[in-house]
Structures are given as C-alpha cells and as structure tokens.
C-alpha cells in the first residue's frame, strides 16, 4: 500500500519534472547544436549535425571575425563588472542587514519597506532616469556607471533576503558575545559573518549573475566596443542581415560557462544547518 503510494507520488513528480526538464534544456540543446555545426549546415534542420566541429570555438578564441574583435576584452569587462557588483552588493547588503536585524537601528523597518517598494517599479522604467543621472555625474561610458546601476538594482532584494536570514540567527548569540566583551564590529566579524556564509554566497551569486546577464543597462550606459560587456557584444551579432549564428551561439555557450562553474564551486557553501548546536530550539 505504502509502496504503491510512493510510486504514484514519484510518478506524479516525474510527470511534472520531465516536461520542465525538456523545456529548460531545449534552448540549450539548440545553442549547442548551432555552435558545433559548420556555417553552411547550421540551419539544416537536423537533430544532430553530420560533421560536428569545434571550428567555431577556434574562431571565437582567435577573434577571427569582425564581431569578435574585442572578445577577450569584453569577456574581461563582464568579469570585472560582475565581480565588483557582487562584492559591492554583498558589502552593502550585509552591513544593512546586520544593522537592521542585529543592532536594531532606528528606522530599520522603514528602510526595509522602502527596499520592497523599489520592486514596484520595473528596472526598465528606471533606465532613462539612471542614464540621466550617470550623465550628470559624468560616468557614461565608464564601467562604474554599470556597476553602480547594477548595485542599485540588486541591493534592495539582497538586503531583504539577508535581513530575513539574519533574523533567524538566535539573538542570544549576540547577547553572549556582548557579555563576552565583543564590540559590534567584533560581533560582526567573529560571530555574524561566519554564520551567514550560506546566505552570503547565495546573495553574492545572485548579484554577480544579475550583473553578468544584464543587457539593457549595459547597452545603455556603455557604448564603446572595447567597454561593453560580452552580453552586449552578443547583441551586436544580430545587427547585420547575415548574422553568423554559429559564432553567436558558440560565444553564447562560452558566456554561459562561467556561471555554471561558479555555481559548482560555491554550491558546497550553500548548506543549511551551520548554526546547529548553538541554541536549543
């Protein structure tokens, strides 16, 4: 009886899971298909190319095409911008969450509510005001413009998530540390941060990938070919009538790899149960 129940519930899960999996993998399959097909057979309609080749990647690496002139620089831009956004957002969000959740500063609730309100306005609506603002400060065509914009967009959500996570840390730990003689800064470094690692990794990853994947703001705020991120450069592939689809897909595939690697490296830090044993619940 129970085994039948188990099988049927498993079957139901599979029934949902398999379509979702196919749905997710289908575009990736297409991307791979294009990137390993020779230029003339890329749109032949076959399920698998007759003569799969890595030639496209070779072209990308050697920047052997008009659109790929700045490939390495643009990839570097993407890296620098994403990592800076991740780091800055983490710094801001962690400080804010610590101050609001642990030090219980006055006005903390208001900050939290305002953070939530920012999400009532779609990021696209803010693109023009943001462009104007960056112009006023003379930051257009500067990486910092994109970095500041992305930090602005990512921070409220990260503050919100980190605040929720830090609320779950037992308050007695802070009191114990205070009695042990810790200053707020020592409490932050020696007790709070080590216990927040899983949330910090999750939130940092979110901000980093948000910046890595950003197209609209990068397109608006940066214009020189050697300044833009690879995401914007990928968009340029489509600006001509005879777009080199196979190169676009090969570059896109390469662009998708770092997030995957990043995820696998940091996955082990995203564990729960770090605070086990601190207090009896």
């Amino acid at each position, binding site marked *: 009886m129970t085994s039948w129940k188990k099988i049927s519930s498993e079957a139901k899960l599979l029934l949902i899971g398999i379509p979702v999996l196919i749905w997710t993998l289908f575009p990736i399959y297409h991307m791979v298909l294009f990137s390993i097909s020779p230029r003339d057979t890329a749109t032949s309609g076959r399920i698998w190319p007759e003569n799969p080749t890595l030639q496209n990647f070779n072209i990308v690496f050697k920047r052997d095409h008009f659109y790929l002139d700045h490939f390495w620089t643009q990839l570097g831009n993407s890296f620098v911008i994403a990592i800076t956004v991740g780091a800055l957002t983490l710094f801001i969000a962690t400080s804010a969450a610590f101050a609001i959740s642990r030090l219980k500063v006055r006005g903390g609730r208001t900050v939290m509510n305002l953070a939530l309100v920012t999400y009532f306005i779609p990021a696209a609506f803010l693109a023009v005001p943001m462009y104007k603002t960056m112009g006023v400060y003379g930051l257009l065509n500067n990486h910092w413009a994109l970095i500041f914009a992305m930090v602005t967009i990512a921070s409220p959500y990260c503050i919100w998530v980190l605040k929720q996570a830090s609320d779950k840390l037992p308050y007695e730990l802070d009191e114990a540390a205070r009695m042990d003689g810790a200053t707020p800064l020592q409490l932050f470094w020696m007790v709070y941060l080590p216990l927040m690692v899983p949330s910090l990794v999750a939130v940092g990853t979110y901000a980093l990938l948000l910046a890595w994947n950003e197209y609209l703001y990068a397109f608006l705020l940066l214009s020189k070919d050697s300044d833009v991120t690879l995401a914007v450069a990928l968009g340029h592939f489509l600006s001509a009538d005879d777009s080199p689809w196979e190169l676009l897909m090969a570059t896109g595939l390469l662009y998708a790899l770092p997030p995957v690697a990043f995820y696998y490296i940091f996955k082990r830090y995203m564990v729960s149960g770090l605070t086990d044993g*601190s207090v009896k619940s």
Partner: protein
Amino acid sequence: MASVSFHNIYKNFGDVKVIRCISFDIQDGEFVVLVGPSGCGKSTLLRMLAGLEDISAGEIQIDGRVINEFESKDRDIAMVFQSYALYPHMTVRENMAFSLRLRKADVRTTEERVTNAARILNLDKLLDRFPRELSGGQRQRVAMGRAIVRDPKVFLFDEPLSNLDAKLRVAMRAEIKALHQRLKTTTVYVTHDQIEAMTMADRIVVMQNGIVEQIGTPLELFDRPCNLFVAQFIGSPAMNVLKGTVQGSYVHALETKWQINSNITTVSEGQQVYFGIRPSDLSLASSGIAAKVVVVEPTGAETELLLQIGEQSITLVMHGRTSVNPDDIVYLQFDPNKAHVFDLSSEQRL
C-alpha cells in the same frame, strides 16, 4: 567575588511595568535564586544586572559601585543562557576562550584557564568538538565553562536547566551546586522551578507581578511563608488551602474543625481566613477528619494520596506504603503547629 545590591529598581516596557520597586542585597559568595511564575520579572531583573536591559529607575551596585551605566563587558559578570548560546562555528575550546581572545589575553593564560575550566567541568576530551556534536548536558557545561574562564565577580544563570530532560536536570543541579561550593563565586540564578530553588539556593527571592513577595532561606519559606502566594508556590505537592472561619482555636471549614496553633493572636473570632496545611504534615490515623480516597500514587519511598472532603480535594504525602484503596474512608490528623493561617482578603500570614 562580590556583593550585589538592588535599590528601588523599576523597569517599564512602554506602559507595562515589569518590575516595581525591588530592593534587596546579595552577600559576597551567596547563591541566590530568583523564582516565580513566568512573567513575574525574574529574568528581566537578571538581564538588568547583566546589562542586557536598561534600568528604568533605581540603582544596581556590585561591590558598592553603581553599575547602571556600565556596558555588560565592564561589569565583570558572566552569564549562562537558557539556550546555551554557544558559538556554533567555534570548537568547545574556542567558545571558552572567546572572551579572553577579545580581551587579548596572552596564549598561555588562555590555554591555562581553558584547560582548568575544562577539567572542573569534565570537558577535557571534548575541547576540539563543535557544539553540534555535543549532547544537551555537555553543551550546558560548555556554557558554564565559558563563564568560568572569565573568573567573574558574579555568575548569572538564566533558567539554565529548563532545556534538559528530568534526569539530567537533577544531575546538573548537583553539578552547579558543587561548582558554587568550589568556586564560592556570588551567583544569581533564575528559575521557575521551585524544587531547583529549594535545593540549590542559600536564599530564595520569590517574585510575582514584578515585586518581591518574600526573601529567605529555603526552609524559612517552606515553614513560614509570609503570604498565600508563597505558601502555594513553594513546596511540592502544593499546600492544601481551605476557606473557613475562625472559631476559638479552630478554623471551621468543610463542615469540620481544623485546629490551629493557639499562639496565633492575630486572628479574631469569626474572621474569614484561609487555612493551609502541607500534604506532608497530614497523617492517617484511626480517628480524626474523615476523607474519601480518590487516587493512590505510590512512588516507592513515599505515597501520595489524593483525597476528597465534600467537594474539596486534599493531598496527603506519607512515608512508606499504605494499604488503603480508592473509595476507602480515611481519617486525618495533623500537628496544629504546622498549620498556616492567612487572612482571606489580604492573603497575608496571620
């Protein structure tokens, strides 16, 4: 070691008065237990002493020095929390050394003190474990070790045993008491469990609704509770209390006469009172006050009888065993000197 004194202490949370004018002194080396039902303000009082709550009015002194404005860390006190509050990412050794590390004590002193505390608490073999790898009792000992290494003037315990199972609680109770006898550090201990209070304290402070009801040694409180609340709170099973009227040297209650000590001169004829008698002060006899047996609870060394007189339940605790059965009629006797009388309206002892 140090003395502690509370002087006209008030604590308000907004409009709610949690502590109302509390004053008492704790002697150097004394083990004082604050006890009372939940919400009576005992933990708040302790947290004010610890510096975790502001003091709305009044003064707290340690060794004659007013510490109201001192930070927790400058009060030279250590606290053991109900929930242990161990740092989960640090080993037992690091947990215990944390306060010394913050004070930048040198490595040798730190090591020495941690080893010493670990030996006292039997934690030697667990020093490199993490809190999550320890049992509840071991965690509680680490929390105590963290307090010991600081060698504070005063130890504070905030219901440290309420998360442990019954058996462990009894064992830890003895451990804490032994620790106090060894270190002789002034200790303030908060609990809602009157048995813990009775067994551990040099003196007990009974609190209710933010005020102190009575302060005294465990036996003083047991023998001469100053009001009905203390009488019923201290002692297990609780004191039997009957409503009645004074008639000569008797209290007339439940259509029977309950003799009281003729030395009680503060009662007047016809006065409405509560008559109190502890379950252990009642005994079975061949004649006396008749009662019906409802439940017999043998616990081995003692037997607890739940009796009924009219609609009123009466508890009796006797040594040894008994052959009485439910629905039997038994007869009760007691020593009038052991009877307690409280005024009906003021509930104060007469």
